[in-house]
């Protein structure tokens, strides 16, 4: 009878693998879009559509020029059919019938979409004290709590609006953390980004609420190119949430976002992500390609903390990074990456220590099930001048099923004698003895797996803001239904 837990585990895994994507549906909203393909005219069209100033158009055109010369990277441990970049629609916006003054004016159909996703704007507005800037197919349609934030001098708006209203701020910071020529996808994003969020926290201000944006791919065949810029001035604090869900599609969709964070002296930015793009069906058909470039720069005494729960996407290629430029700056990275079926994730972080006494912590937890592959790829670089720097990295993988793969590629480079770096990684499956222990105490196998996985991820989930932890838990449930309690 000893073999029993194993069998129930198999049944459980079967259940998991047979689980269909719950959030896969499409909203029928009239969209305005241009022809497929990418050329200078398309970029000019996007820029004109957004009524952008010349410097922005120049920025885009320069990026396009750079992108054309670049080659799509293939060093990541992922296999996917290379998207045809001329077969993508680069601009698509829901037709706005009228300007929205309040959330009540929102398109009822769109509202229903959000309701089905479990995001009740009103509820969040009232209960959770969250200001939501909803991005639906690249154009922001609803922004809440704006006035309350404005009182404190905090700017939280779509980046297209920021380009109009605060051009000097955008101009000063855009492309400074992630230069246009940083990589293939960031260059592409710089050329064609449709919209995104802009957040500015003035000196000494503590943002009183969690700022949050929900992205959602909608129109068939459209890639989504978000651009986020968060600037925290001296001594300020902000917690920013980003969550994604996408409807079911058969063809692969491309998502190439760029997120730039600037933490000035003594500022703190907490950036949390729950990612649940459509992962493809259980045969590995369809799903979103998620190629994201995220990076933050920390000045003296500043802190940037990335927390991510990655459950979706057919292919994930994502390395939220910190450049610890200032003295005593702190970078943190907490990640849970779940892959199932044929999903592939190559994710991790880069911690570049440049300032003295800079510290970084990396906790990466991978859970692989089905025939999926999960990789941790990270870089810890301690420059010569980064005296007394400290890094601690831990990356663990939990394997569920004998057809999945888990990989670790940590790069560690140290160039001075006063710094300390620790790295550890383990790979294992849920121990039969652990399950047996639980069974013995009257906990069913299913619950036991849930308990163990929950405990395994706890370190990371605890870092999420309260409101988000619920969402994260929900998404973990979908990815490993039955495994998580």
């Amino acid at each position, binding site marked *: 009878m000893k073999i029993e837990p194993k069998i129930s585990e198999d049944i459980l895994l079967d259940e998991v693998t047979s689980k269909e994507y719950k959030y896969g549906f499409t909203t029928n909203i009239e969209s305005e879009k241009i022809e497929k393909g990418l050329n200078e005219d398309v970029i000019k069209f996007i820029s004109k559509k957004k009524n952008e100033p010349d410097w922005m158009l120049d920025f885009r055109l320069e990026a396009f020029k750079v992108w054309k010369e670049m080659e799509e990277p293939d*060093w990541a441990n992922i296999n996917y059919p290379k998207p045809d970049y001329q077969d993508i629609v680069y601009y698509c916006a829901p037709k706005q019938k009228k300007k929205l003054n309040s959330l009540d004016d929102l398109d009822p159909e769109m509202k229903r979409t959000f309701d089905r996703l479990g995001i009740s704007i009103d509820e969040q507005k009232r209960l959770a004290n969250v200001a939501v800037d909803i991005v639906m197919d690249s154009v922001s349609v609803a922004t809440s709590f704006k006035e309350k934030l404005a009182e404190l001098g905090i700017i939280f708006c779509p980046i297209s609006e920021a380009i109009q209203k605060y051009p000097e701020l955008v101009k000063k910071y855009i492309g400074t953390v992630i230069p246009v020529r940083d990589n293939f996808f960031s260059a592409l994003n710089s050329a064609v980004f449709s919209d995104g969020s802009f957040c500015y926290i003035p000196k000494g201000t503590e943002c009183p609420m969690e700022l949050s944006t929900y992205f959602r791919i909608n129109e068939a065949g459209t890639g989504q190119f978000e651009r986020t810029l968060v600037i925290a001035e001296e001594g300020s604090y902000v917690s920013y949430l980003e969550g994604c869900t996408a409807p079911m599609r058969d063809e692969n969709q491309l998502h190439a976002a760029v997120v730039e964070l600037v933490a000035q002296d003594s500022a703190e930015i907490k950036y949390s992500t729950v990612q649940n793009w459509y992962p493809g069906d259980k045969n590995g058909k369809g799903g979103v390609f998620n190629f994201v470039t995220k990076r933050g720069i920390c000045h003296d005494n500043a802190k940037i903390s990335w927390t991510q729960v990655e459950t979706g996407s057919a292919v994930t290629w994502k390395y939220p990074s910190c450049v610890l430029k200032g003295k005593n700056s702190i970078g943190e990275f907490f990640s849970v990456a779940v892959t199932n079926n044929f999903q592939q994730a190559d994710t991790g972080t880069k911690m570049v220590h440049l300032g003295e006494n800079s510290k970084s912590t990396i906790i990466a937890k991978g859970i692989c099930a089905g025939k999926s592959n999960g990789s941790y790829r990270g870089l810890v670089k301690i420059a*010569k001048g980064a005296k007394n720097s400290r890094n601690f990295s831990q990356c663990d*993988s939990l*394997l*569920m*099923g*004998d*057809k*999945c*793969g*888990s*990989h*670790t*590629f*940590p*790069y*560690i*480079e*140290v*160039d*001075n*004698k*006063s*710094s*300390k*770096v*620790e*790295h*550890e*990684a*383990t*790979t*294992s*499956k849920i121990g039969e003895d652990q399950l047996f222990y639980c069974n013995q105490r009257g906990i069913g196998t299913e619950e036991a797996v849930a308990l163990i996985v929950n405990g395994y991820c706890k370190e990371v989930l605890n870092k999420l803001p309260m409101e988000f932890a619920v969402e994260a838990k929900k998404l973990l449930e979908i990815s490993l239904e039955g495994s998580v309690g």
Partner: protein
Amino acid sequence: MLIEEIKKYVINTDLSSTQKKSLNYFLENGFPTTKDEDWKYTSLKKVLKRKYCLKSSDFELNDEMIQQYSLGFKHKLIFKNGKIFSEPKISGVSIKQTSDLCMPKNSTLCYLNEAICKNTYEIKFDKNLNLDNPIEILHFINNNNDYFLQLRTKITCGSGSNVKLVERFCNIGKNTLINSCMHADVKRNSFFEISKLQSYNDNTHTIDNTLIDQDRDSTANVHTFSFDGSFIRNNLNFYQNNENCTSNMNGITIIDKSNFVDHHTFVDHKFQNCLSNESYKGVYFDNTKGVFNGKIMVRPDAQKINAFQSNNNLLFSDSASIKTKPQLEIYADDVKCSHGCTIGQIDKKSLFYMRSRGFSEKTAKGLLTFAFLIEVIEKLNTKEIVDYAKTEIAKKLSIEKDLL
């Protein structure tokens, strides 16, 4: 430049068809560059800049020199510029020269080695042979010009045999670049151990490729001691081709001046119930650079694998640097794999404790560093090698050997 020299050299040599193929492969791909992932941190540019010749010149080798460099083992296999000078007579051991021997490869340098190495040796150990004493392999190198030396050895350990080897180099000539390929075929239920003592002089640059194929129930141990030599690159590959194999790797690196050491290890777990253990410790002084890349691969269905890897480093200078990449690639679920990696300094509290008890700073530091290395030394079971390691470590840490 060296490539031109190689082309010139091969015109006057008879190559077999496999050698020609290997040569063409090498000429097509050239020497590895920093653009290759495996050579990301290791640039051969400076090493290859010299004008090396490929022809060896003769020199005199006497017993006195051999005595000086030997660690005093009973059996000695002595090479002179890659050619056998004297060999031990042991029953059950056959050493012969072959001209054309295909061996597995892990970089273009192995192809080059196959194409142009003139002295390929095959060392065979008979079934169930129990070698009482290790065989000491001594390489003496001396050339009139800067020299690009190829070494090529195939070792076959018959099933049930127990073989221990010790390898050491002595370069008394000009600048030498050694490209060494060793392939060990470790048969069923046999035990194979090689200790690589890398105390080269400053004008020796080494690329050492060691590939080990293991059959069922076999054990292979490789101990690498890198103490001197301006450029050392070790490629160490283990292929576990059947169940219940054990692979152990241990390394101690203590380097100073502007020396460079790169350890690349790879363990390929292809079958069930296997074990690998890896422990590399490094101490870096002055302007040294260290690289470590440990890759563990667990193939699909290779269940019940235990693979452990650790890489610990001490940096003693701001001009020293270390790049390390402990890598796991795992395609099976019922495994226990872990790696750990640390980079740090001597604990200040421990140092203070020792200082307050009257140890000089140098001695205290030396003893603590030795304590850091002891985990690896304790795994050694040959008295002469432990002695060698302690002597070299004491020299590097400038403390008296008797203290260790």
